[in-house]
């Protein structure tokens, strides 16, 4: 299986997987099923995490198809552009779904609004993803009617190319984003450390799980800063972020999302009170959380040496 196949395989998660999630969400809203709604928040959150890996694997697929005859390059550009817009909406849906999970069982006015907000963003995401998938499917078949229906104007740069030109033309953008990427790294790392070290027993007499839960948005803020700045790098110069090493970093981010989900859903860490010890399984997951995010940092840092960057 080459990296182009990886992109084709991963495509099913933001499209079919997310579509199933949306159908379930509508069902949950119509039948007023709270538990099913929670399942949908999990699906949307996971879809958003996997979409990061899906989006970036596209630049590998492009490299692979470059020399292949019968492939339409303008359609590839159009697909990239549509996918970028869909990606943004997918991440917003995932973000609010995560908030929905975080404030679960706390009936605030925002929680109520959030349900509607997620419905709107999820619907838009689904439409945009379907459009991106439609154009993507036409790349290898530019002779078909479907491909002809996509309007292309090669003289106008697509959204990602205009984005790239902006970054190239303004020399301050790159170092500014790098700096913010480091700030986000620190915020994420601080939360990951305090949260997981407590689960492993450090400072247990002083900290209960309920207190730790309040820290999570700070880690999410750090991650959001890094997703935004990371996208500045990636969209501007996608050719730098090809190959299995960068893809490994993105899959580790997905692993980090799964790791966080354990603590958001499992009831057992919730019972950890002042002075209490987490169960052995929880401790293993906590240790793996520190390892996963350190590995993400390792992969990001080593990109110029082990990846294709710079």
């Amino acid at each position, binding site marked *: 299986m080459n990296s182009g196949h990886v992109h084709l395989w991963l495509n099913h998660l933001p499209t079919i997987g997310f579509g199933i999630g949306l159908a379930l969400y509508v069902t949950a809203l119509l039948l007023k099923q709270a538990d099913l709604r929670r399942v949908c928040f999990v699906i949307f959150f996971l879809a958003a995490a996997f979409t990061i890996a899906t989006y970036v694997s596209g630049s590998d697929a492009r490299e692979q198809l470059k020399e292949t005859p019968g492939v339409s390059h303008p359609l590839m550009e159009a697909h990239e552009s549509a996918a970028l817009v869909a990606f943004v909406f997918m991440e917003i849906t995932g973000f609010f779904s995560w908030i929905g999970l975080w404030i679960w069982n706390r009936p605030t006015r925002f929680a109520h609004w959030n349900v509607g907000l997620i419905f709107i963003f999820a619907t838009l995401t689904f439409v945009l993803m379907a459009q991106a998938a439609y154009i993507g499917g036409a790349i290898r078949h530019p002779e078909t009617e479907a491909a002809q229906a996509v309007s292309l104007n090669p003289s106008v740069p697509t959204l990602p190319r205009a984005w790239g030109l902006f970054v190239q033309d303004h*020399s*301050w953008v790159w*170092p500014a984003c*790098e*700096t913010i990427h*480091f*700030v986000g*790294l*620190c*915020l*994420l*790392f*601080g*939360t*990951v*450390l*305090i949260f997981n*070290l407590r689960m492993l027993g*450090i*400072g247990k007499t*002083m*900290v*209960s799980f*309920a*207190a*730790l839960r*309040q*820290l999570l948005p*700070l880690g999410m803020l750090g991650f959001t800063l890094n997703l935004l700045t990371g996208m500045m790098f990636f969209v501007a110069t996608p050719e730098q972020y090809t190959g299995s090493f960068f893809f490994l970093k993105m899959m580790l981010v997905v692993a980090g999302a799964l790791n966080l989900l354990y603590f958001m859903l499992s009831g057992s860490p919730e019972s950890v009170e002042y002075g209490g010890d987490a169960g052995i399984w929880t401790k293993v997951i906590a240790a793996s959380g520190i390892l996963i995010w*350190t590995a993400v*940092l*390792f992969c990001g*840092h*080593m990109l*110029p*040496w*082990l990846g294709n960057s710079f």
Partner: protein
Amino acid sequence: MDFLVKIQESGFCQWVREADSLFAFPGILLLHTIGMGLVVGINATFDLRILGFAPALRLRAFEKFFPVMWVGFWINAITGSILLAVNATKLTHNPDFYIKLAFIALAVINVQVLKRQVFVPAETAPTTKVKILAVTSMIFWLGAITSGRLLAYVGRSSGVL
């Protein structure tokens, strides 16, 4: 000046600079980044807690996490010294480098002062003075990160900024 050149051209420094090994320059810089994550991550969480974020988390709990922060600090003191040694003549001529050192010195003094105010037996709500110190702490670390990142850009022969 000769002294700096001597250090910079020592066998160890040449190895760090030029060796085609991940344990040389890339590894040392990696440790420097991880150290930053430990120090600034825990310190910034502490500052934000003082300012009212995550109120259920007891302030004195940070006393237990500060040793982790100091581990990060010493990792960075050591790796930072190595990174200085391998590039001594250039860095000592770069004003940005002194700005970074000044920010770190201020941030470390800041956290020491803050520690004495906060880690007391009878925990009280943070005073205005403590809150101001939490804000300055974040400003100093932000300054250290920014000037540190910009070392890769300013003072280069091509000069991006």
